[in-house]
């Protein structure tokens, strides 16, 4: 098994210590930091995403994999100069106004980070104006809106209204959210789970 494969395998099994050691070993062997990210950490998280979507692993396993990925990032990140950093793009995420739930949104953030995106997490109970301000500040390509409640889904509609005119694509998700609702409120994409959020983000970036 190559060191990259070892890193990926340790991300998949959620072994943070092993990821850290293997990332250090890869550096010692002369691997490029960005290659460790792409071929080790991201490769591992991709597998986790697929397994999560297929109900082969569950929330706890995803969380420890994300933690392991971060342990590897901590090793590699200081060595990446700004010019080296090849994020796939910037995505802004937040739970919409009136809604303070965040585990779903956090899983999406972890999966997007695990797929190589730079993610700005605004947190919970984010009003449409706050999303707009953050879009101006961070210039993301995609904005991800989360809601757990049927009652707060309407904030998604007002947020999308508010973001009209900005050059961003909006994707939405959360327990009660459906493709039909996404179409109704003019969202660019709907993701049914955290792993699908990565696929949808990839599609939006390519479109």
């Amino acid at each position, binding site marked *: 098994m190559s060191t990259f494969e070892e890193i990926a395998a340790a991300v998949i099994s959620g072994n943070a210590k092993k990821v850290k050691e293997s990332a250090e070993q890869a550096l010692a062997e002369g691997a490029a930091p960005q290659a460790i990210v792409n071929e080790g950490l991201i490769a591992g998280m991709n597998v986790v995403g697929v397994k999560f979507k297929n109900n082969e692993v*569950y929330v706890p*396993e995803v*969380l420890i994999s994300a933690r392991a990925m971060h342990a590897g990032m901590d090793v590699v990140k200081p060595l990446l100069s700004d010019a080296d950093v090849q994020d796939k793009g910037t995505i802004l995420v937040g739970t919409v106004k009136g809604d*303070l739930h965040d585990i779903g949104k956090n899983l999406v953030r972890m999966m997007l980070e695990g797929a190589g995106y730079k993610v700005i997490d605004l947190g919970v109970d984010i009003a449409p104006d706050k999303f707009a301000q953050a879009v101006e500040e961070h210039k993301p390509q995609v904005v991800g809106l989360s809601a757990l409640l*049927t009652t*707060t889904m309407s904030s998604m509609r007002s947020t999308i209204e508010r973001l009209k005119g900005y050059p961003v694509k909006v994707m939405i998700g959360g327990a009660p959210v459906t493709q039909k609702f996404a179409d109704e409120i003019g969202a660019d994409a709907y993701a049914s789970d955290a792993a699908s959020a990565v696929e949808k983000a990839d599609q939006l970036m390519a479109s």
Partner: protein
Amino acid sequence: MNSYERVLSALQHKEPDRVPLDLGGGCVTGITGKAYRHLLDYLGYKDTGISVQDQVQQLVRVDEFILDRFGVDTRAVWPQPPSTWNFERKDDGQYWSFTDEWEIVWKMPKEDGFYYDMRKHPLAEVESAEQLTDFAWPNPLDPARLRGLGAKAKDLQHSTQACLMLNGPSAGFFELGGWLRGYENWYMDMLINPLLAEKLLDKTLEIRMKFLGKALDELKDSILVVVETEDLGSQTGPLISPQLYRKFVKPRQKELYSFIKKKAPGVYVFLHSCGSYYEIIPDLIDAGVDILNPVQFTTPKMDAAGLKKEFGKDLTFWGGGVDTQYTLSRGTPEQVRDEVKRQIEVLAPGGGFVFNTVHNIQADVPAENIIAMLETVKEYGAY
């Protein structure tokens, strides 16, 4: 047939005279203040005040005249707060906040808020099982919780002849792990700090059993159902793997549910868990669950006909009457009627069904849809 007999018959998997109906008997089968206000206004009770029973979910105590009007067969029994704690709402800028008896801090936006949500988890920083002993755990045996409740429940049972459901005082023993540690810590604990997870669950289970031991002594002759609330499912599948469930949750469920049944023979164990968790339903039956709620039939592998066919002999489905994520909140009264009718057709045969929505009726549900639902249950609920 009175309400008690009707529910009992359903629980014994025998067909009663009509499908029993629950509204507000449990902390997960009720109606929120905003939706209730709309309903009262719509029915012409414009000056009637409402009383919030469950602050976190903003659930109301449904008035007797409403329960009576729609032929609701259940009544809620709630313990009182302990002597050391009282609900105190604080002004926290754009939020209302309060701290519960577990020291969990809850906040709700003042504007457009629907729920209190947890913003501070008291055991988030704990790293080892030993540290759990330093925590000021609630006293489940505080006499204030049950003072006078036995007589009150007896009166309520006598005056309504209904099925009484014991709620509270807090979430299920497993759910509390997430509340005390924070969900992300908690889910990871089970894999990377299993000893902490085990010890924490031992503690929350011990508290639950001590409370129920005393509560059932007082209430066993008047209640029919004990409500246990856990979260095992998500919109797409189980939250934790069946393996983790079997390691951490199931043995303790077995211990708790057999304790309940030993303490109060004839009382039924009601388990609430939203979402999809088909994979562990046989385990839940094995652990002693009698009643499954809320039967979120729109999620994968949880379709009502399939569940009824496979588990209908062993479980009473309490819920699954109408979808709340779409139909009840966004559908038309006609769509509500159609769905309620269909769900009754699927779930009612042979008993083992108590009509309820899939979780509490939320603030955005129009009164017309609630009425359409209740009228349809009345119209099509006869056996």
